[in-house]
């Protein structure tokens, strides 16, 4: 039977082409015609885009925050928006610290010895920060004190710094996002840390030493466009002190204002104007933290010098701003305008599942397979068509959601953590690609199960539930991380716009856009699931009668 079917086409070329189903291009066209000629599916895709946009904008438009600045009248919305520094890379940064500085023209270097780093923070023992009450001793993990070469005193300007930290040893940091580890261990009077920064043109090199004679290079960085005169000096600052309850969920944490005090001696500056004097300046809100401390209230000087020994106290941070509570102001990420994609996902998955299962119900599948006996090609054509349609729908929905949602969030007084253009493109295209993959996944499930209801439920629940269980802390943080690594929900990571910085203590919840896998790795997991479902669908489609 089959042999005759194969031998027949030779003499009748035209007929033969038809019996083999023509090229893949015409198959694609056939499937696309099927799609666009069912009005309900086209409406469904338009609905998917509209609902995605509606939900995203609804969530964005209802995030209004109120504030009261320095005991003034209560305000809300845009009036609460603080002035936000942006770093050289375009990211939103915090740049608040106490700076003891002098100008440096041309090349030069600064060397200091740090003998102590201590800190105080708001009392968090009763569960929340007690504003105005006495501060208690304690050092935030990323409290820092050290030396810095900075383009200017403007917040957000370029810099490179060598510092000792609360519990992360000596670091060289630059331009807010760069971070290189130096000598480990805490700084104490018994084992002080020597730090050195040298400038040569645009190149800044950082060194550290335990004894002041044996120096190790920690790192070197090019600060392009550095003016000939820069500010050089010592600094101290401390981000909020944060207590994270790691026992259950990564999400329950308290934080309160904190300040760090660094003690410096053996300060030497080469290349500067001879006899230059040190000036103390609070960059941003970089002076003492609001509370009263045993070391003196806000009124006492944040900087003293006695016999070559400098003592600086500051608060704030020199770091990128990350999403979530604990930061200096309420923030949102661009992907938070894309919450509607969950609703879009459900609608798209419904249409995708129907795209295949309807053929079984109406018996059209027998016509389709008679016209194109290559079942793999049929499956591929359906996957490509529904994937492409879902992708286009997703791009439109994501672009409009962000274009409308982000200004709305800014109007509400939220600081939107902007990302580089390429990252925004990745978030938008990635969201659309994720929806397309979910649609293909649903088509494959539809072919395997031949039941649209079951296929839709699996495709939706397997993406939404791992996210929900982790975001709502239903399961412990460790388990949630594994769910977001192994299930198709890992693909949501493609929406993450703000990277996780090791040098910032931040809340890592998927609601803030943080996922345990990197964006592309998470996306690859979703691709693997879809590929596996397609492979299984192909096997089933070949084995079973239609």
């Amino acid at each position, binding site marked *: 039977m089959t042999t005759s079917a194969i031998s027949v086409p030779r003499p009748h070329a035209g007929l033969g082409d038809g019996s083999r189903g023509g090229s893949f291009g015409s198959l694609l066209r056939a499937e696309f015609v099927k799609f666009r000629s069912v009005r309900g599916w086209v409406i469904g895709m338009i609905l998917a885009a509209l609902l995605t946009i509606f939900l995203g904008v609804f969530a964005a438009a209802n995030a209004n925050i109120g504030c009261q600045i320095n005991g003034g009248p209560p305000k809300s919305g845009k009036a609460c928006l603080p002035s936000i520094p942006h770093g050289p890379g375009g990211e939103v940064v915090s740049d608040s610290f106490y700076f003891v500085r002098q100008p440096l023209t041309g090349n030069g270097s600064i060397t200091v010895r740090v003998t102590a780093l201590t800190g105080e923070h708001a009392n968090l023992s009763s569960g929340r920060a007690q504003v105005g009450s006495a501060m208690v001793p304690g050092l935030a993990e990323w409290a820092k004190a050290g030396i810095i070469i900075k383009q200017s005193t403007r917040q957000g300007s370029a810099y490179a710094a060598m510092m000792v930290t609360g519990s992360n040893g000596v670091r060289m940091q630059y331009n807010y996002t760069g971070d290189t580890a130096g000598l480990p261990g805490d700084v104490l009077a018994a084992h002080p840390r020597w730090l050195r920064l040298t400038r040569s043109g645009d190149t800044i090199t950082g060194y550290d030493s335990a004894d002041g004679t044996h120096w190790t290079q920690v790192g070197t960085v090019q600060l392009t466009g550095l003016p000939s005169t820069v500010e050089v000096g010592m600094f101290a600052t401390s981000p909020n002190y944060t207590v994270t309850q790691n026992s259950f969920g990564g999400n329950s944490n308290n934080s309160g204002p904190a300040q760090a005090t660094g003690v410096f001696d053996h300060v030497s500056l080469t290349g500067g104007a001879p006899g230059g004097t040190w000036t103390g300046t609070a960059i941003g809100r970089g002076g003492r933290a609001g509370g009263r401390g045993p070391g003196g209230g806000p009124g006492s000087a944040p900087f003293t010098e006695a016999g070559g020994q400098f003592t600086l106290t500051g608060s704030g941070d020199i770091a990128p701003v990350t999403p979530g509570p604990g930061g200096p102001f309420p923030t949102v990420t661009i992907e938070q305008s894309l919450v509607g994609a969950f609703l879009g996902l459900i609608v798209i998955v419904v249409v995708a599942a129907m795209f295949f299962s309807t053929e079984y119900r109406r018996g059209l599948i027998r016509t389709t397979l008679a016209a194109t006996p290559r079942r793999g090609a049929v499956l591929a054509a359906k996957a490509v068509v529904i994937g492409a349609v879902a992708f286009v729908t997703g791009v439109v929905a994501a672009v409009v959601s962000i274009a409308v949602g982000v200004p709305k969030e800014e109007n509400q007084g939220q600081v939107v953590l902007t990302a580089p253009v390429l990252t925004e493109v990745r978030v938008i295209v990635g969201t659309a690609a994720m929806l397309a993959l979910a649609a293909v996944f649903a088509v494959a499930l539809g072919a395997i199960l031949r039941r649209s209801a*079951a296929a839709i439920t699996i495709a939706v629940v397997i993406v939404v539930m791992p996210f929900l269980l982790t975001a709502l802390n239903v399961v412990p943080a460790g388990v949630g991380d594994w769910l977001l690594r192994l299930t198709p929900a890992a693909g949501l990571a493609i929406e993450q716009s703000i990277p996780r910085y090791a040098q910032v203590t931040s809340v890592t919840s998927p609601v803030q856009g943080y996922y345990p896998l990197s964006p592309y790795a998470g996306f690859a997991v979703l691709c693997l699931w879809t590929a596996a479902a397609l492979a299984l669908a192909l096997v089933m489609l070949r084995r079973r009668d239609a």
Partner: protein
Amino acid sequence: MSAAVQTQPAATMATAAARGASLRHALHAEWTKLRTVSGPAWLLLGAAALTIAVSAAAVGATHCPQNLTCPVDTTKLSLTGIQFGQAVVAILAVLAFCNEYSTGMIRVTLAAMPRRHAVLAAKAILIAGLVLVAGAVAVFGSVLAGHLILPGHGFTAARGFQPVWLSYGPTLRAACGSVLFLGLIALLSIGVSVIVRDSAVAIGTVLALLYLSPVVLAFIGNEHWQHRLERWTPTVAGLTIQDTIGLRNLAITPWAGLGVLALWAAAALLAGGLALRLRDA
């Protein structure tokens, strides 16, 4: 059409006894339909198995180290699986009507039993009854898993944790409420499926109702809207029936929350009944 016309005189003569008889016959017919295909039995079994498996996994993955306080609602944790089981229940309930529409069986059904509300009532009673039975098994298995596993993971009475067992009032309430929750989800799904008729669209609508509100709640920053969503969405309000700690901070009391879900289910059934009556099959 002709069948519908012929029933007019019968309907006017209907007495209470006839009405009861028609529901009884409808129940019998629906029961025959349900038990003679394998799908519903597998789905019921699947709902119970999935619920117990997920609950046991959630409980098994949760430890409370000796030196930390764990703000965990042990009863709610033990009933985590309900959030997955509800999806299977929704499939079962949606298919009960939509399968008849997709195969054309609905026309036979309505020709044999022209009293459309009786058909709807019979299906709703049967599906809800079966779901309650399966739900009772699922909830009992989940509570048992919590009861057996949690004390070994640091959630002991000595550290102030109430035992996850039916002898403890709030746990009993959460357990019974979770069974009812599944029953109400089934009724809600039936209502939606009668309105929508296509199984794919119906399951999509039900899944959006079940899972979207918690997602939006996680993202929305506005306290007023948070409060509204917590009070009025079917699953967030309905699942407050599982809470046993921090009841003061809930936006709605547990039984009232389940009542909100009941309102959703009643509204869906009512709209479904109306749609069934007004439209051609």
